[in-house]
C-alpha cells in the first residue's frame, strides 16, 4: 500500500483521528482504574491513621478539619474519638525543607499535643541515607514518640536541639523536625486556641 500524500487535509484528518482514538482509549482506562486508585489512596491513609492513633470508633476520615496555610499547602487534622472522648488527633503535615521534594508525614498526638507516633506518607529523599525516616528502613523516627513539642527542642543536635540527626542526612532530619513542629504549631494555633476540637 502506498503512503498517503502529505496534503494539508490528509495531515489534518490523520492527526484528528489518531488523537481522538487515543483520547477515547485513555478516557476508558481512566474510568476503569479510577475506583481502584482511590481505594488504594484511602487504604494508605487509613493504615497511617491506625498506625499513629490509639483505637478509635468514629468515622475518622470524615471527622476532620483542613487548615490552609498558604495556597496549595494544607494541614489536615483527623480526630480520633471513643464515644464522646477525644483520644487523639492525627495531623497530616509536610515539610518543604527536604533534600528533594516534599516530605509528607502523619503525626499522631494526644489531645494536649504529645507526639504518640509518626508515619511517613511520602518523600523523595536519597535511598540509603535520607530514607531512614521510614520505619521500614530504620529506627530513627521512634525517638519522637512520647515527646511534647513544648518540652523538647524539636531540632537536630547540630542546630542546638534535642533530636539525634541521621548520619549523612542532616537536611532530611531537619525537614522531618520541621514537619512535626509545623504540625504542633498549627494544632495549637488553629485548634487549641480556638476552643478545643469540637
Amino acid at each position: 500500500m502506498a503512503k498517503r500524500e502529505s496534503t494539508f487535509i490528509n495531515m489534518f484528518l490523520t492527526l484528528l483521528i489518531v488523537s481522538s482514538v487515543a483520547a477515547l482509549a485513555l478516557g476508558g482506562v481512566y474510568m476503569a482504574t479510577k475506583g481502584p486508585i482511590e481505594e488504594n489512596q484511602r487504604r494508605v491513609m487509613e493504615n497511617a491513621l491506625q498506625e499513629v492513633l490509639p483505637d478509635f470508633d468514629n468515622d475518622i476520615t470524615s471527622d476532620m478539619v483542613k487548615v490552609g496555610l498558604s495556597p496549595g499547602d494544607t494541614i489536615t487534622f483527623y480526630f480520633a474519638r471513643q464515644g464522646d472522648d477525644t483520644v487523639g488527633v492525627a495531623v497530616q503535615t509536610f515539610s518543604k525543607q527536604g533534600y528533594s521534594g516534599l516530605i509528607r508525614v502523619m503525626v499522631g498526638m494526644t489531645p494536649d499535643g504529645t507526639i504518640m507516633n509518626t508515619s511517613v506518607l511520602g518523600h523523595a529523599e536519597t535511598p540509603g541515607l535520607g530514607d531512614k525516616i521510614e520505619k521500614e528502613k530504620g529506627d530513627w523516627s521512634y525517638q519522637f514518640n512520647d515527646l511534647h513539642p513544648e518540652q523538647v527542642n524539636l531540632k537536630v543536635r547540630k542546630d542546638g536541639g534535642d533530636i539525634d540527626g541521621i548520619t549523612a542526612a542532616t537536611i532530611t532530619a531537619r525537614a522531618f523536625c520541621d514537619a512535626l513542629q509545623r504540625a504542633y504549631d498549627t494544632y495549637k494555633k488553629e485548634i487549641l486556641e480556638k476552643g478545643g476540637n469540637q
Partner: protein
Amino acid sequence: MNQMKNFSKGLIKDNPVLVMLLGLCPALGVTTSAINGLGMGLATTFVLLMSNLVVAIIKDLIPNKVRIPSFIVVIASFVTIVDLVMEAYLPALHSELGLFIPLIVVNCLVLGRAEGFASKNNLPSAVVDGLGMGVGFSLALTMLGAVREILGSGAIFGYNFIEGDLMLAFVLAPGAFIGLGYLIAINRVIKKE
C-alpha cells in the same frame, strides 16, 4: 528476516542499553534495586511492544510529514495506560518508580524503534523487534539493579543476606554509572566471542 535473529539481537548484539546506549535516564535513575529495574523494564517492554504493533499497522495510513507526532501520540497513550494501571493494581511499585513511568514517553528507545524499525517493517517483525528490545532492556536494567542492590545494600530482590549498608555509593548515582560501565564492558567481551 529470520525472526529468531530479529528477537535475539535485542539481547546482546544490539542491546538497547548496553550497545545503543538508549534509554539511559531510567536505566540510571530507577535501578537502585533489582525489582525496580525489572518493573521499569517490563513497563517499557509493554509500551515498546504495543507501540511497535500499532505503528506497524497504521504506518501506511500516516502521511510522511506528520508521522512523528502521530507516533508520539500512540506512545504517550500506552505510557499513560501503563501509569494508570500500575497505580491501580501495583501501588507499591508505582510509588517507587514514580516520575520515571510518565518519562517512558521521552525514552528515545521507544520512539527510536517506532521510527527506525516498526515504520519500515511488516507487522510480525515489528512485534518481535519490540519484544526483543524490551526483554534486552529489562535484562540490562535488572542486572544493573541487582549489582547495585548487592553491592550497595547487601540484598537481592529485597532479600537481605548481609545486615546493614555496604558500599553506599552503589545505591547513589555514582554507582549507577560505575555499574553500567562494567556491564557495557562485559557485554563487549561476550559480543567478541
